[in-house]
């Protein structure tokens, strides 16, 4: 049973660039949520996708956008990168949106220089 997978594991970008992170949910799951975790902090909710639509969004600017594909996998895009976007980006999946317990992937570590 495949768990949540994310790619790439690490990424280095410069300010102003754009980045795309990818996530495949756990087998049987159809809902994907994205979180940003800064060093020494807890994960902060970015947004959630279900049925290829953004269902809920946290307090993040429009530079953060996403997409969900028919196979339930998802992408997180961040435009005009800032130094403060450096963080661990976590993807979590569940079956349906009304599920409090989420299964997390290993994360993508993004460093913006």
């Amino acid at each position: 049973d495949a768990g949540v997978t994310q790619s790439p594991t690490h990424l280095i970008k410069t300010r102003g660039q754009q980045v795309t992170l990818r996530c495949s949910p756990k087998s049987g799951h159809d809902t994907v949520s994205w979180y940003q975790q800064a060093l020494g902090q807890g994960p902060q909710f970015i947004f959630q996708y279900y049925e290829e639509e953004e269902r809920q969004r946290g307090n993040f600017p429009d530079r953060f956008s996403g997409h969900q594909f028919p196979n339930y996998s998802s992408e997180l895009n961040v435009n005009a990168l800032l130094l403060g976007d450096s963080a661990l980006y976590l993807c979590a999946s569940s079956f349906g949106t009304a599920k409090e317990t989420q299964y997390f992937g290993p994360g993508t570590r993004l460093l913006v220089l």
Partner: protein
Amino acid sequence: SQQGEEDPQALSIQEGENATMNCSYKTSINNLQWYRQNSGRGLVHLILIRSNEREKHSGRLRVTLDTSKKSSSLLITASRAADTASYFCATTGGGSYIPTFGRGTSLIVHP
């Protein structure tokens, strides 16, 4: 913003000892969860306790919830070096199923 606040921020103990971490939150909740994170990697779900429950056990883990004090505690008994990790509490409520995480407690268990 973060709903839960864990205490202490860091905890260092010897193998075999018990580790207790606390979580306080501000608004009413439907449930509270505890997650573990090893070395800045993905989070692993440990246990969920609902607002109408007071205590829950899972192996060496014991979680209590006091809704009148808006607090929860996680007890790890007979700790092992492999328990070294960061532990986060996460709450859901207000009609949302999205968990809101605290800043976490960093636990180091010395062999």
